[in-house]
């Protein structure tokens, strides 16, 4: 059974058309990540799924049941917000139990679920504290705990880590991955951090301007992008795009080469002048100019390359992607 099906979902605010014909499926137990640049409609899509906004048209099915007219609390979902959105006047325990009390769950059931969730998230020492007495990371865990206790069919996360610092972000990312494994629930996760997308997702949905650009597993999208946007969006440093004319005399198309597919080669086709070198220890990123196009090469290991140096890069032709003028991938 599919956990979520969207059929031609559209959403307009007045005459601003934000979501355009979104069609996608989330399988039971799947971890799906929505990525896309800021303002592309990721949060709006999540809110439409949650029922906080009504879709202008289209059909939303959760767990095989059409929910277009079902209020958020009855959709079998739980949502974790970017701003945590904890109830300031309730303790951690109160935050976690409120929804269950609203559902009139028996007391023993509520206590059991809170105990389980707080054990999972290491929240036991904080159960009687108020949100204002917690650190950012702890608040985030409470927000996740509040979602877990409801035992929803579908979890919705809206950029849950974007307020955390880098180290905490990595820990929490791993925690969320473990949680997904432990709960075996379907999750939808919005982010514009592509590391989060690549590492967490079973399936990535790339959005641009309210449209689905491509859906697939992280490696599918990485190795086989449908268009220039997806190719440029995934991968860090991002793919190099060069006009075909630069390499083979003529042509209108664009050639895309991933930074790690470039290598130093004395008779390579790309003559470049180094403008900046980033030495990361394990890798060396070389940013160079090929005529007036910036090119980034990611070389394995440590290299003694200096700014201003003249180099030639080569690449294997089967590793190059070709895109037409409209940005569509050519075979």
């Amino acid at each position: 059974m599919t956990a979520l099906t969207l059929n031609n979902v559209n959403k307009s605010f007045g005459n601003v058309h934000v979501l355009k014909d979104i069609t996608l499926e989330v399988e039971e137990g799947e971890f799906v990540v929505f990525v896309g640049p800021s303002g592309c409609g990721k949060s709006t899509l999540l809110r439409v799924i949650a029922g906080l906004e009504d879709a202008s048209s289209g059909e939303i099915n959760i767990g095989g049941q059409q929910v277009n007219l079902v209020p958020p609390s009855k959709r079998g979902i739980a949502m974790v917000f970017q701003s945590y959105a904890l109830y300031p006047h309730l303790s951690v325990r109160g935050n976690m139990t409120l929804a269950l009390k609203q559902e009139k769950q028996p007391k023993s059931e509520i206590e059991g679920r809170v105990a389980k969730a707080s054990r999972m998230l290491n929240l036991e020492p904080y159960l009687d504290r108020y949100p204002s007495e917690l650190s950012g990371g702890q608040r985030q865990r409470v927000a996740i705990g509040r979602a877990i206790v409801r035992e929803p069919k579908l979890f919705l996360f809206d950029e849950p880590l974007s307020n955390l610092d880098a180290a905490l972000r990595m820990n929490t990312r791993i925690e969320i991955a473990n949680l997904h494994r432990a709960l075996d629930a379907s999750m939808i996760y919005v982010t514009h951090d592509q590391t989060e997308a690549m590492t967490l997702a079973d399936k990535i949905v790339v959005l641009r301007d309210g449209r689905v650009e491509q859906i697939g597993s992280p490696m599918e999208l990485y190795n086989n992008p449908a268009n220039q946007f997806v190719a440029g969006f995934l991968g860090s440093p991002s793919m190099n795009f060069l006009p075909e004319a630069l390499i083979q005399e003529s042509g209108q198309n664009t050639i895309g080469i991933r930074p790690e597919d470039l290598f130093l080669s004395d008779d390579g086709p790309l003559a470049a002048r180094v403008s900046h070198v980033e030495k990361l220890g394990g890798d060396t990123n070389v940013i160079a100019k090929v005529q007036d196009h910036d090119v980034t090469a990611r070389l394995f290991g440590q290299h003694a390359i200096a700014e201003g140096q003249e180099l030639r890069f080569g690449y294997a032709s089967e590793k190059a992607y070709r895109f037409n003028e409209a940005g569509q991938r050519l075979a």
Partner: protein
Amino acid sequence: MNKARHNPLNMVAMHGALILYTLIALFPVFVILINSFKSRRAIFREPLALPNADSFSMIGYETVMKQGDFFLYFQNSMIVTVASLSFILLFGAMAAYALSEYQFKGNLIMGLYLALGIMIPIRIGTVAILEMMVATGLVNSLWALILVYTAQGLPLAVFILSEFMRQVSDDLKNAGRIDGLSEYTIFFRLVLPLVRPAMATVAVFNMIPIWNDLWFPLILAPAEETKTLTLGSQVFIGQFVTDWNAVLSALSMAILPVLVLYVIFSRQLIRGITSGAVK
């Protein structure tokens, strides 16, 4: 930024200014209080002197207690003020929430219409109000005053509160919706506590004009059993003779409840700051 606060010279200057302002603001109250405990002669001979064994007299308070039903006036004022404030806060907050939270046709027009009342003094409509009260038989009842004061306070309340409610995080309300809270619960349990400082501000702004008002009690409810404190005190101010002892004593007693209410609200003002609500 914090440097200025820690500089002792700045601290002294700042506190000096604040203390000076407090003294200036409290001086009239102080004069009223000390003079209310003095004999009539002492009031006029040395208005700024503290009462001493010679000049001390409770004559003012005795007159007030004897004349008219001072406690009834007091009770009337209290009922009118508290009831009006409750209605202003309740209806003002609900209207503000509707205007700030829900998109509906005429939302903007409705907001402007409600805000218009801020610019038009309600006293312009006194004659019409009186006619209405006569027609509905509410003249000489406390309801007349409560209704008028509620109407008078609502525009500013809606205006201020809707501005504050717009700032309450959408995520918080949405979290409540997902957790199955009704819109009323979201309003009363999540939004109201977060705008408590604004509510206190509105309450303080409305309380004092209502407590002190002479105009509407005189016109709408001058009967003995509905007199308010301010109206009741007027008996001591005559065209030719004014019983200053009584006036000052009545005023001293009238200040007290306002002071108590103010202390309650201003504590809310300070306490209501929400840290850690979101983020």
